[in-house]
């Protein structure tokens, strides 16, 4: 069943009539060269942007008919740079609660840290002292506070070393299973897409060139995809 559906979505000159679906409970990667419109797609799903034409449906309801702030609690997003507010690990985990004048229980915060394999990091630690990988994990944990149905990941491993990349991939798969969330993950890295994807969207110049399982994409005869797979159009 499709949890998210795009119908002829157009946005400025960035998205040029995209139609496609994301299956519930699966990991779908958005792959394609820079400027393909991947991040714009993600922001459309989260309601940070809206289509100029066409429509996006969440569980069958047009996003236009859903309160944006309620939608964003159900569709969490972790950004490429894992932005942190100044303060401690707890301050950042508590942010989704604090913005509604609520408080995240300390025990719940510790459980979240355990879920993202950061059991040893104290809640009182200043985020300035965290590594890039630790910030990525905190960013994922922070997104899970709202218990979203869909998790959007925007190149969260782009600036990490290979060992850390593999750890984050394992973590996302674990989180996807344990929280039963649908994951939509932007990556430049075709190898990463092979490792983590159930499904893949291949985008170029604002168009959805192909969508389907990883095997279907790799067996595609489309010259644009063939060029990307061979590494001549990154």
């Amino acid at each position, binding site marked *: 069943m499709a949890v998210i559906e795009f119908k002829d979505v157009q946005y400025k000159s960035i998205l040029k009539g995209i139609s496609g679906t994301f299956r519930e409970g699966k990991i779908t990667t958005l792959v394609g060269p820079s400027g393909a419109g991947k991040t714009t797609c993600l922001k459309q799903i989260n309601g940070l942007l809206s289509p100029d034409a066409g429509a996006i449906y969440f569980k069958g309801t047009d996003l236009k008919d859903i309160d*944006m702030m309620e939608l964003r609690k159900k569709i969490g*997003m972790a950004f490429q740079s894992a*932005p942190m507010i100044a303060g401690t690990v707890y301050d950042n985990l508590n942010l989704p609660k604090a*913005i509604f004048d609520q408080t995240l229980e300390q025990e719940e915060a510790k459980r979240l840290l355990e879920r993202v394999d950061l059991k040893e990091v104290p809640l009182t630690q200043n985020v300035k002292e965290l590594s890039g990988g630790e910030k990525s994990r905190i960013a994922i944990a922070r997104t899970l506070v709202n218990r979203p149905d869909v998790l959007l990941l925007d190149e969260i491993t782009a600036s990490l070393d290979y060992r850390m990349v593999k750890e984050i991939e394992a973590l996302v798969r674990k989180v996807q299973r344990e929280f039963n969330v649908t994951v939509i993950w932007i990556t430049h890295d075709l190898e990463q897409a092979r490792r983590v994807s159930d499904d893949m969207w291949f985008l170029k110049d604002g168009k959805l060139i192909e969508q389907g399982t990883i095997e279907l994409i790799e067996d595609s005869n489309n010259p644009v995809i063939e060029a990307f797979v061979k590494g001549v159009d990154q």
Partner: protein
Amino acid sequence: MSYVQLASALVFILIPLVLTYTLKLGLGNDILIATVRSIVQLLIVGYILTFVFESDSKVYIGLMVLLMIVAATLNIIKKGDGIPGITGIILLTLVSVEFLTMGIMLGLRIIPFEAQEVIPISGMVIGNCMILSLLFLNKFKDEVERGDEIIELVLALGGSPKTAIDRSLKSAIRTSMIPTIEAQKTMGLVQLPGMMSGLIIGGADPMEAVMYQLLILFLILTNAAVSSVMVGYLSYRKLFNQKAQFLGLTNRND
């Protein structure tokens, strides 16, 4: 003071000019332009004030205040470039602050509705509001540009535009108000404020000068709070649309 005495005061312009040319600071033209502008502008204002005071017409008082508000608005909106509708926001703020302060002072009969009282005090009110607004906009735009990732993060977590921009907004309000509060702490110890000095030089009783100055200080504190908060809370909404999406600074003139 005679015109001859005033002309001899130009010797004070020579000192910074000599310094800037000797040290090659590149400020020579700016100093000359500032000097000429201040002479011309103040002489014009002097003649206008003389006319208004002698005419004793309430209409002229209103026109003078309006002129001050328009001049201050034109000065401020340059700094507000990038915030849609900033001209209206600044005009509304200046008019509100002027009405609020003059309403209280005239209503409580602290000052009479006379040109000699209303115009100079309005000048201080509007001038202070202008400086506060400039400080606020400078800091606010900087905070928004540097904090756009956090603003989008809070929105993405389901926060409202107000919550998303709260840190930037409060930081800019605090920054714009701090100089006013700090200046008041050292008032009289480090410097004798302008109005009080002017009254004493003009021959007024020092205690009367102090009382007038205190009145102005309290006014300025109110202005600082009201103008920063008003400009801030009216401006931030312009950076979002009705779908709670962050538009950012538009980089265009209003």
